[in-house]
């Protein structure tokens, strides 16, 4: 099915104003302060105004919900005004949303949370609004290529998928596990590979079938993909799509176990849910806002994993056997200690090329992993 464009929730009027750049002149005269004199545009000017932009609905049991939970934590802070907009497509629309937050709401710190917002949208606005800090989630910021008022942050959630894989490896009977993926971008590929390698650390005979749906949110296709995986004999399913609700419910309905992603989906399938890799943006966002309010600069490139509190795991479900629990906890503790590598040699991709030589290991912090373009041996699927 073709994807139907979602409609930005905010009223159209402010966006139209900014589209016509009606306020550009006013902003140039007196900066943001001049705007507070305009009727309807007045906002709390004493504190910090922070903008959050989501690509989907805020309560999707997934990616956007995890960010909205972070925004809610920021909202609870003293002296901070939060403006949010959901269902903003990765098109010109996000530029309008950002300009409207800057010009009308006086936002000086913006979190556009979707991957596709970065290039060309954030990169187009950042040089124009040098007083505004653009914090992009998952982007590939580089000092020599990108403006200094743009920052990138992300978490090593692949480690969470590795732990998912351990739980899956212990629960699987058919020795075949499944992954419903949206698009073959590096973060998704790392998650798929980590999920399989986690399962293979339990039993090296396990294989992982991957099905790409081609879009971040396509409910019917995700359900079809889940059914196809179960039909192919997969008995543990996980996913990397924006809202895992459909995958979790469909898989559990077919009797398969599920590992969650983005947020805690235990409530959707209490018996079948093994564990899940979750974001913990509340900590990340409150830290960044605190730093900004204290006048400190946020580093342009921020990354963190389990140890830094960027990600966390859902509580283990009742279906994970005792041996699985022990291994899960032991590996989790080891990851938190630091120095743990999921991608380590000898390792081949599923085309037979060596991706890590014997003795070679990539730490979670290794930027090489953010350019991953392969699926490891044991994953049935293709990146194109």
């Amino acid at each position: 099915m073709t994807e139907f464009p979602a409609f930005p929730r905010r009223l159209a009027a402010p966006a139209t104003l900014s589209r016509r750049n009606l306020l550009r002149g006013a902003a140039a005269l007196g900066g943001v302060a001049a705007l507070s004199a305009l009727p309807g545009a007045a906002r709390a000017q004493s504190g910090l105004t922070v903008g959050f932009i989501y690509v989907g609905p805020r309560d999707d049991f997934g990616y956007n919900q995890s960010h909205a939970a972070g925004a809610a934590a920021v909202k609870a802070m003293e002296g901070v005004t939060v403006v949010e907009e959901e269902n903003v497509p990765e098109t010109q629309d996000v530029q309008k949303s950002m300009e409207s937050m800057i010009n009308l709401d006086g936002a000086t710190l913006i979190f556009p949370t979707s991957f596709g917002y970065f290039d060309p949208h954030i990169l187009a606005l950042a040089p124009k609004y040098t007083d505004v800090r653009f914090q992009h989630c998952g982007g590939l910021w580089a000092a020599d290529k990108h403006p200094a008022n743009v920052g990138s942050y992300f978490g090593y959630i692949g480690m969470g998928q590795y732990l998912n894989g351990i739980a899956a490896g212990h629960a699987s009977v058919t020795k075949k596990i499944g992954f419903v993926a949206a698009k073959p971008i590096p973060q998704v590929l790392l998650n798929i590979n980590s999920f399989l390698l986690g399962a293979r650390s339990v039993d090296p005979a396990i294989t992982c079938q991957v099905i790409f749906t081609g879009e971040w949110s396509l409910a019917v296709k995700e359900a079809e993909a889940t059914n196809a995986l179960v039909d192919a004999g997969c008995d543990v399913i996980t996913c990397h799509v924006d809202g895992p609700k459909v995958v979790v419910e469909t898989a559990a309905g077919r009797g398969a176990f599920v590992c969650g992603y983005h947020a805690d989906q235990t409530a959707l399938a209490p018996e079948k849910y093994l564990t899940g890799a979750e974001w913990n943006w509340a900590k990340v966002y409150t830290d960044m806002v605190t730093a900004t309010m204290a006048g400190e600069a946020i580093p342009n490139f921020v990354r963190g994993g389990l140890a830094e509190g960027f990600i966390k795991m859902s509580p283990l479900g009742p279906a994970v056997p005792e041996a699985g629990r022990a291994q899960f906890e032991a590996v989790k503790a080891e990851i938190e200690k630091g120095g743990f590598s999921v991608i380590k040699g000898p390792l081949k991709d599923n085309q037979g090329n060596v991706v890590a030589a014997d003795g070679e290991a990539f730490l979670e912090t290794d930027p090489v992993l953010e350019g991953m373009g392969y699926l490891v041996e044991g994953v049935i699927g293709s990146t194109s």
Partner: protein
Amino acid sequence: MEGDLGWWAVPLAVLGGAIRVSTPILFVSLGETLTERSGRINLGLEGTLVFGAMAGYATAVMTGNPWAGVLVAALAGAVFGLVHGLICSMAKVNDIAIGIAMMLLGTGLAFYFGKPFIQPAAPDLPSIPFGWWSDVPQVQAALNVNVLFLAGIAAALVLHWGLRATKPGLILRVVGDSTDAARAMGLRPAVIRTMATALGGAFAGVGGAYLSLFYPGSWNEGISSGQGLMAVALVIFARWQPLNCFWAALLFGGAGALGPALQSVGVTQGYYLFYAAPYVLTLGVLIATSSPNRALAGAPGELSITK
């Protein structure tokens, strides 16, 4: 848990997908067929579908009864159709423009009222296990047929017969083919078209309830992803024939299942191409059956796109 079927998994998945995915497309295209046979186009059925999905889900959550959800979805769809029909009954109103407006209104209202219902779980509609004779779990899963699918088949048959052989069917066709002839017969075209649009909306609402209450079986804002629009286009593909709507919907459902099924048996290259299969198929059939010498066969004479 389940054995390996190898390549047999593909036709089976296509069959299962056809049964699972086709129902909302079938209901929307049946509803649109009714409306268009009366001489009007309602492009707003995408919005009706989404609103029906939300209304059905919300009702099922609150009452605990999925059938109440289907009923409310049908009523909500009828109201949307009625509004479209009444507005279009006024002079010099363009039904296509109103349809687009109703589509935006339907999705917008559904998103607005649907917010509190994304998280809670609703009871599902029941399905009938037609795969009981097989001990292959994949077959059992594929033949787990929802009651609404059967209702859709029945509706297609009834509409096919009704349009051809009954008096209301004849009246509808007359109104759709010639306003002047209908007036000469003492019929009131605007009233009949409005009723046909309302009934068409009710069909689309039921299609929406299937989406949220059976497959994929939850309410979220991306639930339809354009299926309502595709179904409206399918009516032309089906040449305004209810039975053809059924085959077209099956074809679309089955073709949509092809991509995931092929990936699941290891055909992993070029899945974007497989996902385009239904659309390529539609284009192919439309080109093959088109003719430079005559208008679209079966098109109602009063339809604004073919006039």
